[in-house]
């Protein structure tokens, strides 16, 4: 018997959900990364998971992002599409203390290289570097990081609040 593995995409995803028996659906902070990215602006850093200071962000990759510098290692998992990730070794620290900071223009530094990542590929965004995303078509990046000033939290807009899925 052949088995078909089902991944999701911006064009094709089917959400599950919470069936409450004796609880509040909001306790499960239930969302879907493709649903979130389908309604996001390009490179908006929308938190879909939060654990004290740590977050997972769902990012709609579309066009070319600004440069960002992480305060610690970050990890970008492409969940849909193809994303080019450009890396620079910064001449001077960017001053990020938590998460990452946006850098104006193209920062001074030495080219480290490029990763062309497709759905399923995970890329290290190393501390001390700056990175830029580029996607010719809309895609989705799941980012493992720490909450920063540009992290967007809009839980009531993205999460299930009713006792049954889809309501």
């Amino acid at each position, binding site marked *: 018997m*052949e*088995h*078909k*593995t*089902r*991944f*999701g995409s911006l064009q094709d*995803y*089917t*959400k*599950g*959900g*919470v*069936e*409450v*028996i*004796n*609880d509040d659906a*909001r*306790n*499960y*902070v*239930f*969302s*879907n*990364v493709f*649903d979130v990215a389908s309604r996001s602006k390009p490179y908006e850093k929308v938190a879909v*998971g939060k*654990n*004290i200071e*740590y977050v*997972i962000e769902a990012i709609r990759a579309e066009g070319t992002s600004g440069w960002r510098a992480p305060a*610690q*290692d970050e*990890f970008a*998992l492409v*969940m849909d599409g193809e994303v080019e*990730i450009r*890396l620079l*070794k910064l001449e001077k620290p960017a001053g990020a203390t938590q998460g990452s900071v946006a850098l104006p223009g193209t920062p001074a530094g030495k*080219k*480290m*290289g*490029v*990763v*062309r*990542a497709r759905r*399923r*590929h*995970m*890329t*290290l965004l190393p501390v001390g*570097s700056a990175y830029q995303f580029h996607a010719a078509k809309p895609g989705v990046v*799941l980012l*493992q*990081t720490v909450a920063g000033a540009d992290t967007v*939290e809009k839980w*009531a807009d993205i*999460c299930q609040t009713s006792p049954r*899925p889809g309501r």
Partner: protein
Amino acid sequence: MSQSTSAVPEIGSIEPNRHGYRTFTLGDFGFSRDEYFVQITWPKGSHLIAVDAFLRALQRDIAWGFFYGIVNFDAVVGTVNHYGSVDLFAGRFNAHYRKAGMDHSQRFDTPLIQRVFEAMLEDWTNKTFDPFASPQETGSAFGPKNGSNKEAITRHRVTAKRMIGAPGDEPTRSDESGFPINRHFKDVPQDTPEVLAEPGFEGEVVAFNLFAYLSRSDVTWNPSIVSVCKASLYCPTTEEYILPVIHGNDRVEWFVQLSDEIQWEVEDRDTGAMRARVTMRAGDVAAMPADIRHRGFSPKRSMLLVWENASPDLPTLYASGKMPPTPVQF
């Protein structure tokens, strides 16, 4: 209960029982197995668990170092991790056992309970049975003593220090390294990302195919670390059939469903009363609050990203009420 036991003179019988298996004692608890069941005894009661289910749960408890919080083998027996010591309990998180006064709990230093559990797992796992494998990928756990399967029960647990594939870190998987693609994931693309590193930066421009890596996992329900962002750990795992334990949380953990579907039964951590059923499909994200316990059901082998916060202060913060049991309030 605050005093833990650190030593016992003998951890198991020398002579096997009539089925060929040794019996074990750990403080007030006794463990024996026959051809179908494990019997657990304590001063106020006893309990039977089917031996395949028991060995699957025991295997995870050992491999995970007693994990975060509570590992319920079923609705009666399990362990609580205090990170240095471990409670072995019967009925402690079962409202009816508690009401009847039949619950019992005893604390042991971690090395002691680990040693007894490892000895039990080794003696009771026959050569035909792999506790980490899905039911369709292993032979029988039942019957009289029939050899052993030490290779299966002592697998290396992957704990990346930075990221899989980074220099000096855990390697990716391949046919050559002994990890063929699982029968349920034959359709998962095995391509590698295009990595173009400038000279001198080969060690920092790093990427790998996470889904291909997971498609080659030879175990089920065994979270292992693939990337580390300070105390934030990505612990993906491949799931098939039923989670062999009911995991009781001592902190919030998060799930991101990467492929296929898992249904979760969520119960009150302390009583076992049902709270919710959570169905997760590819791309879904959900939190498991710090005051629940959960068990997953995966009809097809699926990829689940378990996301943990390994900060050591968290159990105390949640237990003291200083931290709400849910990760965000809205």
